[in-house]
C-alpha cells in the first residue's frame, strides 16, 4: 500500500482494487505472462492487495530465464573461441551455464561485447572483417523483429563474418503448454502489452475460445495491471472467454505489419526447449533455410548438446507457477542475485530476483524469526 501512494494514480489504483474485490465471488487464479509485469506486481505489492480476490501466478515471460542451458553453454563455447567476438544483450552475461557465465569467459580473455541493438553487432562484423562476430539472438516477440532485420541486412550487405546463435521463443505456445498441464491452476491471463505492439494479438483468439480462458492484453504500469485484472475477473464472473485489449494506447489487433512480415521471412517455427519447463512444440523461432549461412550453430558445427540443470534450482516449478520463489529452499541463501543458481534470480524480469529485490525475502525472514 505504501508504494501505491507514491504514484499520482494511487487513488485510482485503490478504487480498482475495491472494484475487483466487489466483483469477485470467489478467488480467481490469474497469470501475468510478462516479467516486466511481475516486476511491477511484486514491487507495488499488487498481489498482496488483492489477496483473497485474486491469486497472481508469475508466468514464464522472462527471456533470460527461459533460454535453455544448452544454448547458454553453446554461447560460452563460442565466446571462448579466439576468432570470435561474441555479442549479446547485457542481461544474458550473468546467466549461469553449466560451468560458468559469459562474464567469466570475458574475464579469461574471451571477446564478449554487450550491444544495445543487433545492428550494433552487424556493424562490429563490418568493422572487424578478420573476426567472426556472433550475436546471441534471444527473446520473445519484442526482440524478434530487430534480430530478424539484422540477419536480413547482413544478407543484403553480403556480410560473411556475421552469424546469430538463435534461441527465440514465442508466447502463445507456452500458454498452451501451461493450460494442457494436468496441474494447471491458471484461469485467465494478462498478456504482455509490449509483446503485442509488434505482433498484435490475433494469435490469442483461438486460445481464449479453445481453452475457455480470458486473455487481457495489458500494459505494465500498476494501474494498467489492475485494470487488466479487473477485465479478466469480470469475464470469469460473467462466463466470457475473450481476448480484450486494456493497452489500447499502444497496441492494435494486427500489430506492426512490416515487422511481422520480416519476422516471417527470416524465421520459421521450431520446437524449442524452455529452461525449467522442457521442450514445447513449435514454440521457438529458428532461421529459415534461406538464411542458414547466418546460423552460428551450423557455421561452427555445434551439433546437439544435452545438459542437466543444477539439481537444487527449482526454476521450472517457479516458471510454471507451481512454486512461489520464497518457497524454494535455496532462495536468498544459496541463491541470490549476486550468486544465482538459476536464471530467474539473474534478470530484473525474473520472478526470483523481483521477490528478492523487493523485500519478499526479508518479510519471510521476519515471519520465521517472530
Amino acid at each position: 500500500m505504501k508504494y501505491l501512494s507514491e504514484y499520482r494514480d494511487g487513488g485510482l489504483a485503490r478504487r480498482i482494487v475495491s472494484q475487483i474485490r466487489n466483483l469477485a465471488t470467489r478467488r480467481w487464479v490469474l497469470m501475468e505472462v510478462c516479467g516486466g509485469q511481475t516486476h511491477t506486481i511484486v514491487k507495488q505489492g499488487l498481489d498482496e492487495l488483492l489477496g483473497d480476490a485474486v491469486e497472481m501466478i508469475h508466468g514464464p515471460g522472462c527471456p533470460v530465464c527461459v533460454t535453455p542451458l544448452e544454448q547458454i553453454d553453446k554461447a560460452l563455447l563460442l565466446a571462448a573461441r579466439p576468432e570470435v567476438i561474441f555479442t549479446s544483450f547485457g542481461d544474458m552475461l550473468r546467466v549461469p551455464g553449466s560451468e560458468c557465465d559469459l562474464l567469466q569467459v570475458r574475464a579469461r580473455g574471451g571477446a564478449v561485447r554487450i550491444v544495445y541493438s543487433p545492428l550494433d553487432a552487424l556493424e562490429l562484423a563490418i568493422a572487424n572483417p578478420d573476426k567472426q562476430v556472433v550475436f546471441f539472438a534471444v527473446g520473445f516477440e519484442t526482440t524478434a523483429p530487430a534480430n530478424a532485420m539484422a540477419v536480413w541486412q547482413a544478407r543484403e550487405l553480403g556480410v560473411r563474418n556475421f552469424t546469430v546463435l538463435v534461441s527465440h521463443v514465442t508466447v502463445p505456445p507456452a500458454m498452451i503448454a501451461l493450460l494442457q498441464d494436468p496441474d494447471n491452476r491458471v484461469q485467465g491471463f494478462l498478456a504482455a502489452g509490449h509483446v503485442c505492439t509488434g505482433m498484435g494479438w490475433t494469435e490469442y483468439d483461438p486460445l481464449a475460445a479453445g481453452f475457455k480462458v480470458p486473455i487481457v492484453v495489458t500494459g505494465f504500469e500498476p494501474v494498467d495491471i489492475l485494470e487488466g485484472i479487473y477485465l479478466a475477473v469480470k469475464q470469469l464472473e460473467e462466463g466470457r472467454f475473450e481476448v480484450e485489449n486494456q493497452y489500447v494506447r499502444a497496441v492494435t489487433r494486427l500489430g506492426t505489419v512490416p515487422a511481422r512480415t520480416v519476422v516471417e521471412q527470416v524465421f520459421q517455427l521450431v520446437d524449442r526447449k524452455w529452461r525449467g519447463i522442457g521442450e514445447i512444440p513449435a514454440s521457438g523461432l529458428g532461421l529459415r533455410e534461406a538464411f542458414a549461412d547466418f546460423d552460428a550453430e551450423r557455421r561452427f558445427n555445434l551439433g546437439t548438446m544435452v545438459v542437466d540443470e543444477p539439481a537444487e534450482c527449482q526454476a521450472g516449478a517457479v516458471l510454471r507457477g507451481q512454486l512461489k520463489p520464497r518457497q524454494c529452499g535455496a532462495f536468498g541463501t544459496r541463491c541470490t542475485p549476486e550468486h544465482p543458481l538459476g536464471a530467474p534470480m539473474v534478470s530484473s524480469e525474473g520472478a526470483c530476483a523481483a521477490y528478492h529485490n523487493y523485500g519478499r525475502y526479508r518479510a519471510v525472514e521476519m515471519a520465521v524469526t517472530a
Partner: protein
Amino acid sequence: MCLGIPGRVLEVHDDRGLAMGLVDFGGVRREVCLAYIADEVQPGDYALVHVGFAISRIDEAEAKRTFEALQEMSLLDELEFLRDIAAQELEHIAARGLA
C-alpha cells in the same frame, strides 16, 4: 529487453537501404532503425523502441507517461547502457556528418 522505451524522432535518413533516425530518449540520443514504421513516422513524432528498433508510433502524452513510469520503476537499465555508449555513438554519427 522486453519493455519498449519511448523516444522522440529527431531526424530520418537512409543507411545502406535501411530507414534509420536519431532518436532522443529523455536527453540520451542514439541511432534507431525506423524501417518498420517508415511510412508513418516523421521528425517530431514519438515511437516505442525495442532494442534499437522502432516498433510502433505512439502519441506524445503516452510517450511521456511511459517514460516516467519506466523511470519510477527503475526499468530503464537499457537506458543506462545507452547513456554509457551514447557519447561514443554520437562521435560515430558526427563523423558521418549526421549530427
